[in-house]
């Protein structure tokens, strides 16, 4: 196994040493072409803005190599996006970490203050994009978000965490995929890579800083369906409860899913919701003064036992129905105030 040591900086200077050591050719301060005895391929380095640089690697190795990255003075974070067909190995503090999109862990964030080594797989195409970002710059990005939210976030980059890794989100994956089909020797590659890199960084920050990114689990269609059943329930308060299977069929989903979503939307089961609404209607009827007895009302609401109704009523309002009951007055004391049309 051949070993190379190198370091990173935001400026292209670091490439001289590495190119010389590997015996590769350095073109235009940007492209290092891999010497034939190691394999085939190249790397592409470009400075995007002050504080952000990108290194794109695309090669197939024939000889195993190990790239030791020395720590350097500049304060950097290295974002390693790996899209290789086969997992590669990153070694930090003598622990091997596998990386590659094939094993669903394509993104690593490493601090430049810690040494690490990179062992790409042999005879497989290795595609990786490394973003070098100034720590100060990144912290500024993060600082602009409310601290409380920041604390809740999945990722906290601090000095004690040497390494963080995760899968690459789909959109970023597509962006890196699109690099695959471009040639680094093409003139438009440079701005393209710059654009892609900035987008990746944007995606990354978005993902870990934006609380909106939390998935809305209920889709609009489902909410609509649930609301439809709710309206149905409200329209049929005088009837008995129509049963969950019936309602779920109406919403076009399985009973268990329906119950789950209903609970999420209204914080109550369909039946409880129905009974509650029924009781609210009952108070209205009780106070309306249109009925002679309670039994009349409970028949109206499709209850057959007065005692059952009373218990339910008490559960909700902590009052007996009889306390709210206004009996029908047969003698009309006041003349009717409304005008008949």
């Amino acid at each position, binding site marked *: 196994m051949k070993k190379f040591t190198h370091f990173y900086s935001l400026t292209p200077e670091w490439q001289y040493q590495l190119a010389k050591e590997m015996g590769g050719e350095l073109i235009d301060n940007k492209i290092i072409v891999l010497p034939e005895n190691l394999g085939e391929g190249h790397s592409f380095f470009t400075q*995007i*803005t002050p504080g952000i640089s990108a290194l794109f690697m695309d090669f197939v190795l024939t000889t195993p190599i190990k790239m030791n990255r020395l720590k350097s003075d500049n304060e950097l974070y290295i974002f390693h996006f790996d899209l290789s067909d086969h997992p590669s190995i990153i070694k930090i503090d003598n622990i091997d970490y596998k990386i590659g999109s094939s094993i669903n862990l394509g993104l690593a964030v490493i601090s430049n203050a810690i040494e690490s080594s990179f062992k790409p797989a042999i005879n497989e195409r290795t595609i990786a994009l490394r973003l070098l970002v100034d720590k100060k710059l990144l912290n*500024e*990005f993060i600082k*602009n978000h409310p601290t409380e939210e920041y604390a809740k976030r999945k990722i906290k980059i601090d000095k004690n965490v040497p390494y963080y890794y995760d*899968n*690459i*989100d*789909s*959109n970023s*994956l*597509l962006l890196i*995929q699109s690099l*695959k089909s471009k040639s680094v020797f*093409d*003139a*438009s*590659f*440079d*701005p*393209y890579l*710059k*654009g*892609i*890199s*900035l*987008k990746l*960084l*944007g995606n990354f*920050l*978005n993902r870990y*800083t*934006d609380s909106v990114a939390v*998935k*809305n689990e209920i*889709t*609009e*269609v489902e909410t609509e369906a649930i609301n439809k059943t709710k309206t149905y329930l409200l329209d049929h308060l005088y009837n008995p409860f129509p049963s969950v299977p019936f309602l779920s069929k109406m919403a076009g989903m399985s009973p268990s899913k329906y119950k789950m979503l209903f609970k999420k939307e209204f914080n109550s089961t369909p039946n409880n919701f129905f009974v509650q609404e029924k009781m609210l209607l009952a108070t209205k009827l009780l106070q309306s003064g249109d009925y002679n007895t309670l039994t009349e009302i409970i028949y109206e609401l499709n209850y057959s036992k007065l005692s059952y109704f009373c218990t339910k009523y008490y559960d909700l309002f902590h009052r007996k129905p009889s306390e709210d009951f206004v009996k029908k007055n047969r003698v009309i004391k006041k003349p009717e105030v409304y005008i008949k049309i």
Partner: protein
Amino acid sequence: MKIIEHSYGADLDWVKPFANKLGGKVKGNFIIVPEDTFKGTRYFLDCGDDIVAYYVDVMNNKDVNLVQKNTKKDFIGIYYNITEGDVKYSSDSFVLNVGRWKYNLLVIDSALDTNYKIKAGSRSHAFCIFMKKTRMAYFAKKNNINFKNLNKITDSSKNTIIRFDRMSDESYHLIEELQRFKPGGPIYDLNIRATVHLLLSNFFKKMSATRIIIQTVNKLDLERIIETQMFLINNIEESFPSIETMALKANMSESKFKNLFKKITGKTPNTFFMENKLMEAKRLLEENQFSVSQISDRLSFTNNSYFASKFKAHFGLSPKTFVNQL
């Protein structure tokens, strides 16, 4: 009609006077204008390297004529205009309908005064890049692009550059994607910068490619092809209407239609249709409102597996993995 005279530039000196003339003010990177004239976003950003990006997405509530008279003549404006509906863009030497389905990519020298006529009730949607001529020359040289008479172009006393073209599909989707982000904040700025780089990459690539420029195609033919393009986009959920019907629509023979379509869009009708379909599928997947099979049905794919294989072939990962890793 209200006439507003203003200038743009590759630095930010133009922003304040422009905001004042619109009756608004500058707040952060936004130009805030009272809603009775325009409603929406105007966002500008200095991208460094003598490049300024300016993004507009507004509803126009009044008839306005924007007259561009630049105080600085040292830059070139690249205007990506994806306004749906008609907007008239004119100067002494040309009158042009601009918009998504007309000419939507304009490259205009700052030395030229232009009129931009906006009707009330229309929506302006554009992304502009202002770039110093010296920087343009540098880019062109670096990218091995031979502009004809590059020196003439970059020397404002000698010549002015005007170019009307249609942007590539990729560019369109790039700008469309910007819409989905909430404007403002450092992450948005990152995205704007990214878009500028990607658009420029696309632009220079197009410039360097030796393919027949649209101006050489018969105007009527061009219109017809664009019409069919529009037809395809409007019917993106249907299945592919045969070449035969489209050729008939465009009033051309099938072979002529196919050739011209490829010349103008760089793709065959079917690829063009499929790629846009897949972009639509991607957008729907991102919204997370429908399942993969629902989307496949909605976009008239014969079956799920065909959809999945097409999706995978284009984007490099299957719809399911795409959704899972969102």
